[in-house]
């Protein structure tokens, strides 16, 4: 863990609660006193079942939802979203097909956060971003329909990185992708984070994805934090885990590949 006294964490979520008011004035607590910090260049994974509050939490960090109580600080300051300015917090969504305008070229979508720049500079930057994520820049004028799912997710990541964000929020970035493509996107996120040192929050239902991408894991259930700590503490706990969390680890083990694979290097 980073010492908060010496460095300001990129993300600080302090005692965030969120209550939605439904019909008939019933209130539904979606988040309850959630606190965590993420330092620059590090990743926290948020894991939980549907309805646990994962998306609400990420929306609060992105500034799309206002917490009922508590505060979200980005680099020590509350996030102020202003029209015409790009937020230092960018998002990558689950389904890349829905995240891009089908009628616009990929270049136009990626250039969206770069509106202030002159045209030539904008295009140069888009080409740079596309090569960074492994898309041939000559395809910049193509529309999303011409790309496969994995390529579109790369484009979405390029767009998220266009404004050099401090924080990248990834909501299930690989669950809409094929297994053989999932590994490519995971590798891409790892390389990009190494290079750009953004803080990352990863929402996932897959503990194995969390293990390979994240430093810390936060297990949410019904808006409450059941576990927060290093990934290894979750997988090889020194003290007994909460029953629900232990079950989560067990089911994840129960659904992974049955026996050790033949050494992957045999493929070369």
């Amino acid at each position, binding site marked *: 863990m980073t010492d908060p006294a010496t460095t300001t964490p990129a993300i600080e979520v302090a005692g965030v609660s969120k209550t939605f008011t439904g019909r008939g004035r019933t209130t539904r607590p979606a988040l309850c006193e959630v606190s965590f910090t993420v330092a620059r260049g590090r990743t926290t994974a948020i894991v939980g079942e549907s309805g646990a509050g994962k998306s609400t939490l990420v929306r609060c960090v992105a500034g799309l939802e206002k917490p009922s109580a508590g505060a979200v600080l980005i680099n020590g300051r509350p996030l102020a979203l202003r029209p015409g300015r790009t937020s230092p917090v960018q998002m990558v969504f689950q389904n890349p097909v829905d995240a891009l305008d089908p009628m616009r070229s990929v270049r136009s979508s990626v250039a969206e956060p770069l509106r202030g720049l002159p045209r030539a500079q904008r295009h140069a930057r888009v080409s740079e971003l596309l090569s960074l994520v492994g898309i041939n820049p000559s395809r910049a004028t193509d529309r999303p329909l011409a790309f496969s799912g994995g390529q579109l997710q790369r484009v979405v990541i390029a767009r998220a990185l266009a404004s050099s964000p401090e924080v990248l929020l990834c909501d299930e970035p690989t669950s809409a992708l094929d*297994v053989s493509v999932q*590994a490519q996107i995971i*590798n891409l996120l790892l390389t990009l984070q190494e290079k750009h040192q953004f803080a990352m929050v990863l929402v996932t239902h897959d503990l194995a994805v969390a*293990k390979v991408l994240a430093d810390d894991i936060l297990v949410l259930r019904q808006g409450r934090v059941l576990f927060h700590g290093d990934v290894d503490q979750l997988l090889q706990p020194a003290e007994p885990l909460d029953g629900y969390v232990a079950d*989560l680890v067990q089911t994840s083990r129960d*659904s*992974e590949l049955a026996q050790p694979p033949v050494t992957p290097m045999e*493929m070369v």
Partner: protein
Amino acid sequence: MNAEALRVENLTVTTAAGIEIVSGVDLTVREGELLGLLGETGAGKTMTARAILGLQPRGLRATGRVRFGDGEWISLAQPELLAKYLGRTAGLMLQNPMGAFDPIKRIGPQLIESVVHNGLMTKAEALARAAKLCRHLGLGDAESIFRLYPHQLSGGMSQRVALALTLMPAPKVLVVDEPTSALDANLRVEALKLVQSVARDDGTAIVLISHDLGLVSRFCDAIAVLYAGHLVEYGPTSELLHVAAHPYTATLISCSLRLDGPRRTALPTVGGEPPLPGHWPSGCYFHPRCPEARDRCSLERPTFVAGAERGVACHFARQEVRS
């Protein structure tokens, strides 16, 4: 060895434009066994599943033949003949559970409707079976579930109710298309355990369609791997995982994430993505991504060599297939 419950031969699905999206697939499932049909986007998993039951979308033409149990061979080109087997003999559960329900009818009546209407059970028997299935599937109090409308179910619940709906007539063959993609990890294992117990207890033969090698390896007795509309490999689960004969299967195994896997280090990958129907490469469809591709692979399509237990379509298969 159990009796054969489902046999499919030379299943081919062609679009109106003449593009083959599934080519010459052979499958065999015995009573009480689970066959995992594994494949990625565009591999033709769903089309295979639907064509077995004559339910491919209009405009697609299926050829080949199918046999349930020791019955007659039925041509897949005649969906109207296959329709007679739908439901009691062969059930299908599709990916999107919400599409399985009538939105303006309560769950209880929907669950028992078809079995009572077709005279398979009395209303009381049907209600008892529905309640038992609901309990098995972790839906809690069956009485309160029966009173709900489909829109009141959460994603996970509707998937489980849809599973219960398919299981109501106790079909002999069950084709399940991605039964767990909308479920949480813990419910996913539960749902598959139930599907497995249906196979073991009722002797149902199950074709489980999935893209998740991990889950398939845990619950299926045998695995058939599809790539770009072709069967590339099949075999008993343990043998296939031990030595994958086809490089594509080996790729799927090495790309699978494991909790004991490495942390924050790059994973082994293959480049590229599965081809989409109509954009098939020359020769072996996997050769542009294959780490072991040689000259012959881009020129000549390998034939499927089928043995008794295992089969593979690769010029340079790493496992001999004995017939």
